[in-house]
């Protein structure tokens, strides 16, 4: 990439022209209804003295306040970095993106490379901020056997628009686990979260990315995520949304460019209240022997409207893709719209999809009652069982950790 791109003015010029560009999916959010204003000082500046009212907020989205079994933490409040430190810098470094772009000239080669800055008005606006915020996580070459990095981004002011640009790079032969939570301060009801995330997986590297979203009923959310995978890479994405949200739309894309690259997306959604949820995943199977599995499980509750998308394009020789979307409607006023799409561009690809939407069978409820559970206990058991995260492809410790985190998030969401 040429050096003229190594400053933000270059991207701002492109972004400016896209500020009115509506996204193809999701309701058009009027971003002017939200403010970018900062609190003067972040409430949380050190994990050793977390304000009591924030402790739960952090724990609910997977943050271990004592940083036990973690190799680094990044916490962003609104549009300011509250806390950021790396505990195992030789192997993995986490920095505020602004700091990282100053420190590492080469990082500009990745900035807006997986996602064009003019993708839509949200990415464009992300570039227009004075000071770019977000994290940069860098797993060093050969770094293995490292504890997860944890991050939490939360909205700390009513009516705030939080703007984030994250980059993760896993160097060859590294294995990285990231646990990240996006949420709101307990006092915040209304807000907008715009988050761009670009992940680059170098040869033979692995990234497991677990994201817990915990919003309030008046938060609008527009993440933009793209992953570029080189050969022999593995990307596992666990995404969980169990709380109410006003309106969320996201459709991450993975480019499996290298041979033998694999990705696995698992999306667990409990649509509550009046939430409008449009979530999906897309995979482009370009390399030979690439493999993508996009799994989503959705509970349609209350008055929620959930669109679940999955799209796999098979291009590479002997590529394989599978989409599974299972929905469970538990409210007569909820709607689930499942849109699996498979596109074969070669005879040498195998693509399948399955989708189902059902309700909890009365016979199942009765069966559980015949073991002494009441109606509510029986329903809760079936719902929590339906949304149980599949951790069979995670290493044992991470599997347990992931299960635990999702259990906490689920309890918090009620």
């Amino acid at each position, binding site marked *: 990439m040429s050096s003229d791109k190594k400053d933000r003015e270059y991207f701002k010029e492109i972004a400016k022209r896209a500020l009115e560009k509506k996204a193809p999916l999701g309701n058009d959010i009027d971003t002017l209804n939200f403010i970018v204003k900062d609190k003067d000082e972040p409430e949380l500046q050190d994990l050793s003295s977390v304000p009591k009212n924030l402790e739960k907020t952090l724990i609910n989205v997977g943050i271990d306040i004592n940083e036990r079994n973690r190799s680094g933490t990044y916490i962003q409040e609104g549009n300011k970095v509250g806390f950021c430190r790396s505990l195992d810098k030789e192997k993995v470094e986490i920095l505020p993106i602004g700091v990282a772009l100053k420190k590492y000239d080469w990082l500009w080669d990745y900035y807006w490379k997986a996602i064009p800055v003019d993708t839509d008005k949200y990415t464009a606006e992300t570039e227009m901020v004075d000071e770019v915020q977000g994290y940069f996580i860098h797993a060093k070459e050969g770094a293995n056997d490292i504890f997860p990095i944890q991050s939490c981004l939360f909205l700390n002011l009513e009516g705030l628009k939080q703007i984030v640009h994250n980059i993760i790079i896993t160097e060859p032969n590294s294995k990285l686990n990231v646990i990240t939570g996006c949420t709101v301060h307990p006092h915040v009801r209304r807000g907008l979260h715009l988050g761009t995330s670009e992940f680059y997986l170098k040869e033979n590297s692995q990234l497991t990315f677990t994201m817990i979203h915990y919003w309030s009923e008046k938060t609008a959310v527009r993440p933009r995520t793209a992953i570029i995978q080189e050969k022999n890479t593995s990307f596992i994405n666990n995404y969980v949304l169990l709380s109410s949200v006003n309106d969320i739309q996201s459709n991450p894309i993975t480019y499996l460019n290298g041979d033998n690259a694999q990705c696995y997306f698992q999306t667990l959604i409990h649509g509550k209240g009046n939430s409008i949820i449009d979530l999906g995943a897309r995979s482009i199977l370009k390399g030979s022997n690439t493999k993508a599995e996009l799994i989503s499980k959705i509970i349609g509750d209350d008055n929620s409207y959930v669109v679940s998308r999955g799209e796999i394009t098979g291009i590479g020789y002997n590529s394989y893709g599978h989409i599974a979307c299972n929905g469970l409607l538990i409210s007569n006023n909820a709607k689930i719209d499942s849109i699996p799409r498979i596109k074969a561009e070669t005879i040498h690809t195998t693509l399948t999809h399955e989708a189902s939407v059902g309700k909890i069978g009365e016979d199942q409820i009765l069966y*559980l009652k015949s073991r002494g559970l009441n109606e509510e206990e029986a329903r809760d058991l*079936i719902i929590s069982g*339906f949304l149980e995260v599949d951790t069979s492809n995670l290493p044992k410790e991470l599997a347990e950790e992931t299960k635990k985190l999702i259990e906490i998030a689920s309890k918090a969401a009620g």
Partner: protein
Amino acid sequence: MNGSILRIENLTVTVNGGKRILNNLNLNIDYGETHVLLGPNGSGKSTLIYTILGYPGYNIENGHIYFKGKDITNLPVEERVLMGLGVLFQHPPKVQGVKLKKIVNICGERLQKMIEMGTIDLKEPLIKGCIDLDDQTKKLAELMKFPIEFLERDTNVGFSGGEIKRSELMQIMALRPDLIILDEPDSGVDIENIELIGKIIKELLQIEAKPINRIKAGLIITHITHILQYIGKIDRAHVLINGRIACSGSPDIIIPSIMKYGFDECQICVLTRGDSECGENKK
């Protein structure tokens, strides 16, 4: 223990907008007794089970069901169960997402609750030698010849006939109800497992205990009688024909007669009250 654990009086049940399935049915089981209810397909056996359990869709037009002396005719399912009533189902539904381990643990928890409530007279909720519920569930799996991984399977999803029976038995063993209704306990069970299942049922129903020490009661509902030889002594047999107890008496007389003549003879017997080898109802 004396007295009746289950008493059904003049029970008439309709389904699907008026179709009468049970017709003025009477049945009594005392504490510590095991009865067998035999009947051809369509005679109302399943309806009787679901009505005793309190499932919706079975409309009681007349009559009462008493369990442990209490009228449970209008009680919700789970309340009946928490009084100490348990059913081993023939065709339990698949429960996607709910692992067998979870459901067996829940049964164990419920037993604990019943002991606290005083509805089940046991001192110890766990089977002897078990440390906790997880441990008990594991040991039950071993007893049932299930590999430990089987406990992680979704309940009844892809289970074979024999696996369903053993899974049901695990749940009942953790729940240890005072009255166990067993719906066709040997259907779909292969020959290797039938003896195991029979042995476990025998233990659950305390069949080999001294009569004075027997509390647990059982109602085995079946249209065939293979399993009975493994269970041992049955106190009483009933024949259900067209929604009515057509005949009750000693299993030693009724069972061989059905083996010999089939239910057709019972049918004739009901219609004519004529000559029959089956003792008590003969006129």
